[in-house]
């Protein structure tokens, strides 16, 4: 936990200029972690939320909490902040008791003050906090404050500025003397730049623009943004690239089946290299394969960064999710001491994982090094972002089951297969940090090609949510890493969970149907976790109240607990399938247990957003590519969910304040994907097992039925 690295209260909070300032290493991506941290502090210390700030996240100054990912922020930074505040509260009360010459139980902590019940003498909490001893250690047993009935409410941080168009993103930064920059995106990451027309470089130079070239990395910078945009387009047309054999084309699922895989038994959620890889079942009664294609993050804003190089030092403003790892990877790439590279987080648009943010930060630095003392604002174009950002790997999940006499699943074999989800720049063997920055594949440098290592952590990567939460008596689970598939993969929201949950929850639905049992009751028969049962039970009650969906519609159910240890989510999707094969989402009902809730509205927003991102994956998203590079290069060639197919979403939160707060940012997409698959079956009788379930896929399945 984060307090192991940062054990002092002063690491986490302090008073500056009469305001409480919280420290964190987690960055706000629109998931409202900074709002949640403020609410935690306001609750624990009974100070007004309006008097609490969150410090900007900057290397050398902020806490190093790794990457803002994995739905971990509430359980890491949030839990640590709560303990730091609770420790501070105990100290503050003791201090006030001393100053007011009172017993602690004669004091009331309320509305930012500590008041003596008998004398009404008051001391402001912020005044007391400003005297916190620098060496006060966090008490890991400091109790959370009982706030029942007095939940802090505050608008999400930044919302007011967002609706007024005044929220500042990296893209909006201005600096004196700043140059705008664009890269010339190669057709594939390691394409070799054979030639760029020298006339065009001369012409751009006459117009006050400069071209930066390092090996096959090519960029243009100039004072006027639109001129730079046009220059980049012109240069792109004037380049000759050698793409070698090009990208391997064809069916990625066949490629990953044919290639040799690194296979591991997964025991208690963890790959075990010492254990025998379990064999498939004899004569399984259920045996299917579920497939998910390559998908993009598809952030609404193409990636950007502002970099300045002065006196041998780099400062980079970036929307990266992991500024310390990125700093080390950039420093290693450029032969700089990490202390001479400073990164600060500035918001970008929502990113949903490792998109091109880190690459853009490094590339802005490369351009800045060629223009000392000049701030460089690099922005990707939409085509750059779609064409260059790391994708989420395609995955194939084979699932087999045998049932007992009661039609319950007794034996299960599953293999989850795909490329890595770990493409973030981060130190490792063979300079794995620099090797995971796209520009290093193009520069004149000796950075080796990145070769992924299997992620052996619990419930990680491909095997996230591979282990079914259901109490099957015999579970045989396999992780199969297949590197060297055509596209560069990395982390997208939920990692392997959506494909694995789709497989498990489709199987549960089919087996329930075969058994003639309703899908919720069938799941409950296999569940020992009482909180899972409570979530499904609540969904059952809600659906009973709502009544059946219309006759032409179908209702699909799914359940998952993210990483088998975070927020529990049950989803019901009511949908219809049109004559053209298009799936129309009507109504989504979701029940979640996230333990103690920090921000009810923020939690609901994350769950709703996850439903819609899951729906977009389920119905639309897949990356298309050819020998010469990606062909999904904009929002027409890479369709996503739009407003016209947004369902009504009802979110119900259950759970107890006595339980720890659980991460929720990635809890709903997986079960939503599966519930849509099950809803399509309920509406049409068709079982679709390869994402996306777009109109073509539905019609094809109907023709084959």
């Amino acid at each position, binding site marked *: 936990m984060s307090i192991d690295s940062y054990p002092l209260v002063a690491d986490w909070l302090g008073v500056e200029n009469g305001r409480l300032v919280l420290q964190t290493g987690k960055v706000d991506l629109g998931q409202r972690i900074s709002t949640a941290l403020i609410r935690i502090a306001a609750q624990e210390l009974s100070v007004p939320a309006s008097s609490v700030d969150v410090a900007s996240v900057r290397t050398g100054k902020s806490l190093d909490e790794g990457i803002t990912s994995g739905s971990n922020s509430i359980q890491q930074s949030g839990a640590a902040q709560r303990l730091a505040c609770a420790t501070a509260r105990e100290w503050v009360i003791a201090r006030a008791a001393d100053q007011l010459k009172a017993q602690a139980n004669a004091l009331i902590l309320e509305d930012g003050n500590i008041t003596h019940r008998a004398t009404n003498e008051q001391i402001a909490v912020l005044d007391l906090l400003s005297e916190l001893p620098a060496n006060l250690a966090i008490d890991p047993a400091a109790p959370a404050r009982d706030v029942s009935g007095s939940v802090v409410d505050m608008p999400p941080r930044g919302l007011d500025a967002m609706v007024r*168009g005044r929220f500042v*993103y990296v893209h909006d930064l201005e600096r004196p003397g700043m140059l705008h920059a664009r890269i010339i995106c190669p057709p594939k990451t390691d394409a070799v730049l054979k030639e760029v027309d020298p006339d065009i470089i001369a012409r751009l130079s006459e117009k006050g623009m400069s071209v930066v070239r390092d090996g096959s990395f090519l960029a243009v910078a100039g004072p006027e943004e639109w001129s730079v945009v046009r220059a980049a387009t012109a240069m792109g047309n004037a380049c000759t690239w050698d793409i070698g054999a090009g990208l391997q084309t064809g069916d990625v699922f066949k490629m990953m089946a044919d290639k040799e895989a690194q296979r591991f038994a997964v025991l208690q959620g963890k790959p075990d290299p010492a254990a025998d890889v379990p064999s498939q079942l004899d004569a399984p009664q259920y045996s299917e394969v579920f497939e998910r294609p390559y998908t993009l993050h598809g952030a609404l804003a193409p990636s950007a960064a502002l970099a300045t190089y002065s006196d041998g030092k780099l400062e980079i403003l970036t929307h990266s999710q992991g500024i310390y790892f990125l700093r080390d990877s950039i420093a290693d790439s450029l032969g700089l001491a990490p202390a001479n590279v400073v990164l600060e987080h500035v918001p970008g648009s*929502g990113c949903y994982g490792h998109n091109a943010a880190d690459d853009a930060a490094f590339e802005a630095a490369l351009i800045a090094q060629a223009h000392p003392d000049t701030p460089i604002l690099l922005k990707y174009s939409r085509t750059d972002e779609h064409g260059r950002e790391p994708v989420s790997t395609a995955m194939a999940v084979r699932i087999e089951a045998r049932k007992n006499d009661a039609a319950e699943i007794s034996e299960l074999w599953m293999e989850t297969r795909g490329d890595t989800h770990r493409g973030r720049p981060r130190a490792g063997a063979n300079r794995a940090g620099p090797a995971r920055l796209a520009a290093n594949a193009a520069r004149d440098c000796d950075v080796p090609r990145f070769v992924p290592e299997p992620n052996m952590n619990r419930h990680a990567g491909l095997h996230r949510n591979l282990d079914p939460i259901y109490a099957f008596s015999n579970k045989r689970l396999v992780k199969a890493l297949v590197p060297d598939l055509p596209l560069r993969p990395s982390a997208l929201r939920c990692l392997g969970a959506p494909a694995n949950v789709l497989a498990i929850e489709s199987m549960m639905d089919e087996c329930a149907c075969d058994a003639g049992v309703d899908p919720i009751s069938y799941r409950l028969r296999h569940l020992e976790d009482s909180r899972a049962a409570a979530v499904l039970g609540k969904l059952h009650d809600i659906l009973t109240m709502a009544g059946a969906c219309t006759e032409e519609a179908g209702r699909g159910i799914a359940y998952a607990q993210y990483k088998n240890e975070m927020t529990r989510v049950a989803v019901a999707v009511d949908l219809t399938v049109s004559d053209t094969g298009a799936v129309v989402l009507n109504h989504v009902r979701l029940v979640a247990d996230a333990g103690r809730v920090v921000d009810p509205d923020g939690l609901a927003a994350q769950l709703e957003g996850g439903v819609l991102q899951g729906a977009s994956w389920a119905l639309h998203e897949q990356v298309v590519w050819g020998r010469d590079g990606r062909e999904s290069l904009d929002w027409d060639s890479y369709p996503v969910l739009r407003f016209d197919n947004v369902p009504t979403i009802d979110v119900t939160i259950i759970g107890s304040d006595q339980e720890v707060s659980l991460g929720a940012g990635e809890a709903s997409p997986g079960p939503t994907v599966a519930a849509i698959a099950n809803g399509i079956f309920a509406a049409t009788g068709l079982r679709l097992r390869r994402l996306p379930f777009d109109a073509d896929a539905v019609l094809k399945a109907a023709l084959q039925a």
Partner: protein
Amino acid sequence: MGKSRAVLSLSVNGKMVQITSDPDTPLAYVLRNELNLKGTKIGCGLEQCGACTVLADGEAVQSCATPVAVFADQKITTVEGLADTEDGRRVQEAFMSARAAQCGYCTAGLVVKVTALARAGADAERNSLKDALTGHLCRCGSHPRVLQAAEAVLGENR
């Protein structure tokens, strides 16, 4: 680009301003870089996502690809200018009440669009609204809150 620059007059947020950008420059770049109105976002430069939506003579239009010269005779209102109008303020307050943003990058364009719908007396029925907003992409999934805000504003119009 080029040395000789025709000066263009443009009406933005109720004021006439002189523009020195090349007349081919898309409006959004002029608003952001020359007039420092950064609320208008560029998400694609292809008129596919709606982040750059502004009002031109009261109509919601995308500004990321159409040259500024095309707008010379029109009155442009950006998200920053909406706060000066009653309709605009109502829409912004409705977005606040519904907490209709996550990362916020699509939000300004949606605020502008909903203001245009409110002024046009558009139908507050949900399916009509969904169709009316479908040119706007949101990737975080703030859609239900945006629809809630839009329904609240358009519903009051009745």
